């Protein structure tokens, strides 16, 4: 019996991990399917118009984000731009904050000229550009040193960057496009603040309006879910295994490409973008004038945010380690769990929220529903994909022979995972945890429908207080949110960028 269990460790682990994802993510969606009242809502031209608009905005935001992020990513990732790590941190900081917070900041800076589709695209494009920057940078950093060094013998940095590094890091750019377009499409707070009618708002209206209509909401998101599945399939087909060969979290020890006389102009350009990214946060900080208001009004919200995001991140990485490894190694069944995680990530958060209430608000699960645990479940469901995909990328970078040598040495699945994969991928796994943590800290739309009374995360507290709360108090709470995020990133930087032994 023990031998049989040992022999099937991998399959059992994948089943357990898959069960976690199914319970957290699939069950709420299935609970909603039963409420669907048909597709009559799609008879209205307005629904199609909104869907087209949201898709258009998502595409525009993706283009802006890539246009900024890809060149900056190459520069910050592989060249001798001055202070590139600091510039990267400043630039990336904004992507860890709720876009609505950034929109508020931009509003303080430029006023109401922001309130249109162009303003929304610019705001979101800048907000999500660091996603493209970071993935591109990590992609070019992960390019095989031998490839780059072979090119350095004959070519200048520009040619190396455009003919060797970027093509090799193309899966990173493709992944960035997908992530940015999903985030841009499903964003609710910023478009509503900037008064741009978008598709997720229509879904929200079915749940935030007077006649509670989850059935209509589910009918509305069906095309989105189908689109998500289509995009996932396309990604698999086009990018295939390379999709996961993105994060170059090993090998940072190569000398950077020398930019020569272009060094200072490009340094200025990078720092300019970094300043632009941090400007709305600075505007909020100025408006806040300090933290005293925040400390008076925050109550337990910061604690709620940190605990729920931290626990969720740990769960996400634990499950992500098993599923991500299986995805990277193409274990049977892994693709289904991955697809499910993608599906839930794309599902508008408000719909997920209603499904979670339907599933968990029962006598037997009271211990979950009435405590912070329900927020953890919500975060886990929504952001499981972060753990899966980042770990998959990390594992794809680990030559399979390392695991095979371990297997040949008698190590079972769990031992291979714990003694070979995890140590070799430690930096990447830490990065996955950090990313999941900041997604949880930044979340608003997921938790807002079902946080336990008195247990709201800080983001929700900011937005409920925004109604007639003094602007200074709201800004001060936003500043607190930004500081907590900065603290998490600082801690994460220590974990992730510590020099690995290998």
């Amino acid at each position, binding site marked *: 019996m023990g031998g049989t269990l040992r022999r099937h460790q991998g399959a059992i682990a994948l089943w357990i991990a898959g069960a976690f994802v199914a319970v957290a993510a699939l069950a709420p969606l299935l609970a909603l399917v039963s409420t669907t009242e048909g597709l009559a809502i799609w008879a*209205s031209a*307005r629904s199609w118009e*909104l869907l087209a608009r949201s898709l258009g905005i998502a595409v525009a935001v993706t283009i802006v984000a890539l246009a900024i992020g890809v060149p900056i990513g190459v520069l910050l990732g592989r060249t001798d731009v001055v202070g590139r790590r600091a510039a990267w941190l400043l630039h990336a900081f904004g992507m860890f904050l709720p876009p609505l917070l950034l929109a508020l900041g931009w509003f303080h800076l430029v*006023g*109401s000229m922001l309130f249109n589709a162009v303003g929304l695209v610019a705001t979101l494009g800048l907000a999500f550009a660091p996603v493209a920057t970071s993935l591109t940078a990590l992609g070019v950093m992960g390019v095989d040193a031998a490839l780059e060094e072979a090119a350095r013998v004959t070519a200048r940095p520009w040619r190396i960057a455009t003919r060797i590094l970027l093509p090799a890091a193309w899966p990173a750019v493709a992944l960035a496009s997908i992530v940015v377009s999903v985030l841009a499409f499903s964003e609710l707070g910023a478009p*509503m*603040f900037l*008064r741009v*009618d978008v598709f997720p*708002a*229509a879904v*929200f*209206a079915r*749940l*935030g*309006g*007077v*006649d*509670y209509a989850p059935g209509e909401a589910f009918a509305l998101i069906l095309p989105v879910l189908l689109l998500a599945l289509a995009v996932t399939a396309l990604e698999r087909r086009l990018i295939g295994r390379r999709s996961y060969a993105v994060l170059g979290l090993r090998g940072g020890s190569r000398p950077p490409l020398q930019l020569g006389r272009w060094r200072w102009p490009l340094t200025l350009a990078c720092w300019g973008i970094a300043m632009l990214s941090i400007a709305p946060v600075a505007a909020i900080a100025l408006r806040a004038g300090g933290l005293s208001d925040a400390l008076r009004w925050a109550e337990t919200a910061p604690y709620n945010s940190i*605990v729920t995001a*931290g*626990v969720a991140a*740990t769960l996400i990485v*634990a499950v992500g380690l098993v599923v991500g490894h299986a995805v990277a190694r193409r274990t049977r069944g892994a693709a289904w769990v991955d697809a499910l995680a993608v599906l839930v990530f794309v599902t508008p958060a408000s719909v997920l929220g*209603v499904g979670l*209430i*339907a599933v968990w*608000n*029962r*006598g037997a699960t*009271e*211990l979950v*529903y*009435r*405590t*912070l*645990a329900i927020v*953890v479940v919500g975060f886990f469901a929504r952001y499981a994909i972060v753990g899966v995909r980042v770990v998959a990328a990390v594992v794809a970078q680990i030559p399979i022979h390392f695991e095979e040598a371990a297997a040949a040495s008698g190590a079972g699945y769990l031992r291979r995972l714990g003694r070979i994969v995890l140590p070799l991928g430690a930096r990447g796994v830490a990065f996955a945890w950090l990313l999941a943590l900041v997604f949880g800290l930044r979340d608003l739309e997921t938790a*807002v*429908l*079902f*946080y*336990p*009374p*008195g*247990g*709201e995360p800080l983001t*929700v*507290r900011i*937005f*409920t*207080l*925004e*109604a*007639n*709360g*003094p602007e200074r*108090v709201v800004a001060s709470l936003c500043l607190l949110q930004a500081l907590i995020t900065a603290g998490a990133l600082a801690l994460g930087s220590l974990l992730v960028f510590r020099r690995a032994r290998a």
Partner: protein
Amino acid sequence: MRTTYLLLFALAACKPDAREVVLYTSVDQVFAEPVARTFESESSIKVSAVFDTEETKSTGVLNRLIAEGERPQADVFWSGDPVRPFLLIKRGLVEPYVSSQAADLPAGLRAADGSWTGFAARARVLLVNKGRTSEMPRSIRDLAKAKWKAQTAIANPLFGTTTMHVAALFAAWGEAEAKKFLEDLKTNDVRIASSNGEVKRLVVAGEVAFGLTDTDDANEALKEGAKVEVIYPDQDGMGTLVMPTTVVLIRGAPHGDDGKKLVDYLLTADVERRMAEAAAHMPLRAGVPTPANVRRVADIKAMTVDYARVAEEMEKIQPWLKKWAGL
């Protein structure tokens, strides 16, 4: 590491056996929370609250109450308007409770059986930017007048008190006239803001000449020192819509007895006074001191409203309203 987290989480989940009451409210958190904290300190009963966001105002919390209907988590619902509680009453989610504190509140603004009780009211007002127009609007119909084309604003009628106001118009004018008015608003390029707070911002910023909003939002504009005027519309006609905040006890609530204590507290004259001072809410009972900028309900001509009927209209007009709002 895993063990540490599990422990932390368990700690977070475990609560000592202190008394607790759960309040769901669509009254602005900045006003409702201090009231809740005072109740806590006076009664030693912890208040755990769920508040609404600006955008979903009063419907997010309402829908959560409906979604949780099978197993209520809330004990008390303090609504920012008197009409949404009817949606709960209709679904059998409310426990009638006649509070002793309700005795001196006007009979017309509470249910005899205690299923809902109104107090601390707001009114629907026109907030005017004095720099944008010298002529003051006098009626809500002015929102659709051609001379103010593209210069007026209302909040999204799918959310918040605007829903109630539109439903009240349907009830008062009839379907045909009310629909025409809304179509005229569209023709007149009225700006549809995400919330009443947003209407206030638009008016204060001078982006529109005037907008339809609530008295507490208007009061905030005055407090900020904005050059605005507050008009109680239709004083010569049908009257201004007055919306008491209302409190209901939830059927099957987890802490029913303490819920009643909270209801009793909310309905005191002291809370009306505090809501008047902090949020410019108009007291319903006589003798409650109010700041100078807060009118009393008795001092204005209020629109005659059957809140139950308005609640019905609100549900009926939803499909048409969604089309009108473009969602």
